[in-house]
């Protein structure tokens, strides 16, 4: 069992999964490519995981405000899209796109209701074409699905990969 850590959030992986922190020093191309936080490899699929944590207790108030501004201006969806695309390209060019990809965005915002999470999930799906032209499948799938979750929804949907706060 291993864990992946980003700020105040910690993801625990079962023994059968291998995960790595993708958005860090090892990435090496952060000047030109954005990156999701974690990439987790399972036997049948790969998870791209992006964490947004406005409730991180250690975060500066200014950073939280910046997040809210970004969120309200709709820039967040754009940022999430770019992170997915750049991470996908990076992994493709490294010859590692050989399993279906699922893109998961975790919002560390406990006040987001299911209605808001549903709206954010729909918005994300509008940014990332799961299907190809004319609603037909891509010859080579970009991804199989994506969703926006908060910690409670994540732990309900992915009980084998629990996420918790380090500070609690």
């Amino acid at each position, binding site marked *: 069992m291993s864990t992946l850590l980003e700020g105040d959030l910690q993801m625990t992986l079962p023994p059968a999964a291998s995960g790595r922190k993708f958005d860090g020093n090892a990435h090496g191309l952060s000047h030109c490519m954005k990156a999701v936080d974690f990439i987790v490899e399972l036997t049948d699929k790969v998870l791209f995981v992006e964490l947004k944590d406005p409730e991180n207790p250690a975060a500066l108030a200014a950073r939280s405000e910046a997040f809210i501004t970004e969120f309200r201006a709709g820039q967040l969806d754009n940022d999430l899209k770019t992170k997915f695309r750049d991470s996908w390209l990076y992994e493709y060019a490294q010859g590692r796109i050989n399993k279906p990809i*699922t893109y998961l965005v975790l919002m560390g915002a406990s006040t987001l209701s299911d*209605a808001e999470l549903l709206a954010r999930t729909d918005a994300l799906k509008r940014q990332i074409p799961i299907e190809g032209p004319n609603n037909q499948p891509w010859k080579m799938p970009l991804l199989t*699905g994506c*969703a926006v*979750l908060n910690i409670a929804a994540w732990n309900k949907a992915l009980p084998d990969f629990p996420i918790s706060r380090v500070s609690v």
Partner: protein
Amino acid sequence: MSKITHVKVGNFTSFLNLDLAFSSGINIVIGENGTGKTHLLKMLYAACAITTGEDKEKGFALKLRNVFNPFEGRMGRLSRRQSQSIKTKVTVTKQGGAKLTAEFSNHTNKPDAVKVTGETGWQKEPLTSAYIPVKEMLAHAPGFLATAAKREIAFEEVYVDIIKHAFLPKLMGKTDAPRQRLLTALQKAIDGKVVAKGEHFFLKNEQGDLEFTLLAEGIRKLALIWLLIQNGTLLAGSVLFWDEPEANLNPALMGEVVDLILELQRLGVQVFLTTHNYVLLKEFDLRKQAGDAIRYLSMFRDESGAVSSATSDSYLGIDPNAVSKTFSSLYDRELTRSLGVIKA
């Protein structure tokens, strides 16, 4: 200026026992279909209506019957349905402690046979009120009142009443600043003013007069509120009952409607509304300011099938919340579809 503070109900329509304390500001009733939201509003409206105008003569029992319009006009059909005989009691209380009570049984036929107590004291002080039904009525005004008066159509009286309220003439004297602000905001939303010519309502703006039948239903509703503010029906101390304000409104207009309701409350109007709409609820949560008084009344059926209630003064405290429950179900199914099963 009095407010309704409390209602206690036993065996009325779908309610077994209902004991609710109200906010003097905004009361938002939520619940699934068939949990008695509209019944609650109509019951309270009947109590308010008999304090003013021609309804004073009718009295509580007859007004109750007329707003519910039960089959063959039989009061007993408003009792909760049971296999055995059943006693029904409704008590409405207002500030100062005045109480109005109606008691009858499932065998009671005529309103005269209903035991009403406290009516004289209750009627001493007028509680001006308006009930806005889900269905917009102004476009149907021509001929409606005359037909209803001849009893040629069996409509619930709330439909007749709202048309009568809309026809009231403009309040005399200078319009005070808060009311003018509301009227101006509404005029902007509906792009004009409302004028009545005979029994026909028109929206008047630079392009001319547009008959109500050609207007979107959502705009007609806002136009009705404009009329009620202009003619003084909605003033400090009055009570507004609004059944599903969201009906026929584009969600983009919901924020303006919520601002309008909040502003009416700040002017001293007590508001009772029902809703099934997440956007409306969330707009209240986001737009309310310190000092605004909002109470959420959640109606639900308990294990026995009888309607129960729970109240909360905060949006997140609503439990059960039939509206958010629906979204949770949608979200769960969306996650299942999008993610499938992710296992180690």
